[in-house]
């Protein structure tokens, strides 16, 4: 141990007495501004411990010191959430049983519903339908004017309530047979029907095969997809004459669809989301651009 009061020859500064392989530590004073800030922090920590929750209870006791203010961030957050709910409750109450007319005619409520719906959509629907409702193969695009089960506000709200092929007792339900897998049609028959569907949707097709397919179509498909292939919203049967394909519109994709018979499922949101939130969600989906006026076309009112 070196003597404590050894003075460094070069700087004339005291050393601390610590020495490592001949290297001594200078005992330079700390800058005063630094010291004062340090003292202020120490003082502040004492004040803080008095007023705020700070120390765990000694062994044998539960909890912690609560401080004079009794501040709790958990309680604060709960309070903030409650305040937020309260500030929204007026608008949510108005959404409870509102029809579209009432929502649309009130710009503030309309904006509120779209904002709330957008957030609920992101949390619950975007997984399948995409964050902008653009859809994917097997999951309908909610932006366009093509609706399997109806595109009026009430149709959309009802679909949200009961779901599609869900476990809700009133769920929207229909089932297309798996013609190939269950051997209801032969491979060549499926190919013929495919050619006819291509013809229906104005794509290039084999006339001879399509002619044979037309007969099969009338027998097997027309009951749901209608004679002319325009579909039926009451059964969720898509229009086969338009340019929109849920499972793809190429010959191979159509053939695969007929072979396996799609069974798209959407859960029922009743009970999972509050009633006003379902209304908000319906408003949002309606506002994406594909929403149809009530009674605008005869199929629009269908569904329920």
């Amino acid at each position, binding site marked *: 141990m070196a003597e404590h009061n050894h003075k460094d020859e070069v700087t004339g500064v005291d050393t601390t007495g610590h020495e490592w392989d001949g290297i001594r530590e200078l005992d330079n004073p700390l800058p005063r501004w630094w010291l004062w800030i340090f003292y202020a922090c120490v003082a502040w920590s004492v004040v803080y411990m008095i007023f705020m929750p700070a120390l765990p209870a000694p062994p044998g006791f539960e909890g912690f010191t609560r401080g004079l203010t009794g501040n709790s961030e958990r309680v604060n957050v709960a309070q903030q959430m409650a305040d937020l709910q309260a500030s929204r409750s007026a608008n949510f109450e108005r959404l409870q049983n509102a029809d579209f007319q009432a929502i649309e005619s009130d710009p503030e409520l309309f904006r509120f519903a779209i904002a709330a719906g957008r957030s609920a959509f992101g949390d619950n629907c975007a997984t399948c339908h995409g964050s902008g409702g653009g859809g994917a193969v097997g999951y309908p695009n909610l932006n366009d004017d*093509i609706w399997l089960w109806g595109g009026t506000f009430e149709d959309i709200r009802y679909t949200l309530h009961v779901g599609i092929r869900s476990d809700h007792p009133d769920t929207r339900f229909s089932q297309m047979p798996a013609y190939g897998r269950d051997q209801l049609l032969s491979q060549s028959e499926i190919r013929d029907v495919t050619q006819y569907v291509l013809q229906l949707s104005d794509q290039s097709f084999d006339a001879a095969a399509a002619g044979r397919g037309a007969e099969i179509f009338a027998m097997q498909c027309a009951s749901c997809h209608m004679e002319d292939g325009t579909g039926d919203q009451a059964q969720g049967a898509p229009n086969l004459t338009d340019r929109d394909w849920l499972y793809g519109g190429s010959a191979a994709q159509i053939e695969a669809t007929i072979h396996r018979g799609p069974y798209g499922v959407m859960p029922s949101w009743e009970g999972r989301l509050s009633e006003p939130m379902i209304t908000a969600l319906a408003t949002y989906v309606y506002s*994406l651009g594909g929403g149809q006026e009530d009674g605008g076309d005869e199929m629009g009112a269908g569904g329920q």
Partner: protein
Amino acid sequence: MVQILPKAAAPGIEQHDAEAVNDAANRKLYKKREPIYPKLVHGKFRLAKWVFMILALGAYYFIPFLRWDRGGGAPDQAVLVDFEGRRFYFFWIEIWPQEIYFVTGLLILGALAMFLVTALFGRVWCGYACPQTVWTDLFIAVERLFEGDRNARIKLDRAKWSFDKAWRKAGKHAVWLLIAGATGGAWILYFHDAFDVLSHFFTGGSPISAYLFFGILTFTTYTLAGTMREQVCTYMCPWPRIQAAMIDNDALSVTYRWDRGEPRGPHKKNDSWEGRGDCIDCKACVVACPMGIDIRNGSQLECINCALCIDACDDIMKKVGRPTGLIAYDTDINVEKRQAGEKPGFRFVRPRTIVYAVTLALVAAVMLVALGSRSTMDLNVLRDRNPNYVTLSDGSVRNSYTVKIINKTHEPHQYRITVEGDPALHAWLLGQEDGDLVVTVEPDRTTDFRLFAALPQDAIDRASEPLLFRVEDLVSGEVQVTRSVLQTGYDR
């Protein structure tokens, strides 16, 4: 008892027993700060500093109470930084957060002005206009009021504690705190309605942030101007370092004309002035210096160019009957020229000052034009990218847009939206398939509108159709235009 008479630098002129305590040579790294006791001087620069102090402090305390009628529900305070409403009001100017570049421009303007002034006249900002200088000057004046001038203050500090010392010290600190409080108090007036703040502040009804900033500024004013003073300039402020790049040989600075002053020494009655310098080494310049330096050591980082030593020296020169200006605003080059017998001169027009002045004028002109042509509405069009485009059942392709219209006026305005592009284009607002595209925006608000634009299948012949969004203010007639596109997914 023998009374020790002060040493004389010249008949009737005391030679101060003073040391330039803050001079770099006297300032060891770990040395405790030695207090500086600046002596009051009289003269034109002292007067200029008083006048400037009154103007600067007057403006600082008075401006929040100026009113400016803006109509509508807008605040009527002339200068107001409204954080809650997210607006900055400056008389006729009103700045929204996205226009913060105006503030940036103002800062650039301030920096350029500082460059120019420094290149011309040296550190006049430090000497006269810097808040640190103004408040320190005020605090020293208060100190002088309670404790007397330099010698009395030194004596008082060395004296044992007595009632006299106690009340003088207490009085000084009380007035300092009062001034510091008023400084912090005036600061918060710039962020809320001044009269409102005043009426609520003392009853505890102001927001917590008001008290917080009042506390912070009171504390900083008290410590910076009361106890830290020259240390702020010497150790904390970056400007003394930056200004080294701004000052060249031709920039003015407070200069001791050593060609005239040396060799220095006390002057006795009837002695000749021949063969010696005019400096009688009375150290009046040293005791006057609020920075604690000796200007005779030349230009130095600690000097804030407040010119109080010029006043002090001129006073002495008059008394000994020598010409004034032994210390003056001058350049080292001129001193050397005089020494060599050449004619001194000032070069204010130099490439550096020309560049600064031209840049300053350019930025100021750009700012003026920008502020003068500032629009009262703004338009933003955001195209939905998810999904990028939507094909409808009839083969037409639709894109959706969020049209943001900002109404910066204080009355509700109506706007007509026009979408220009392919003649076959059809555009409509959400919920108004057939209506005309006229919308209303509430005063001082930004409102989003959802707009759809669709192109029939047979009109689609490229992947991206250019669009022009035009929004016309139906009240003022102002038009804003922005470009966007309609994505079609066309790939043949």
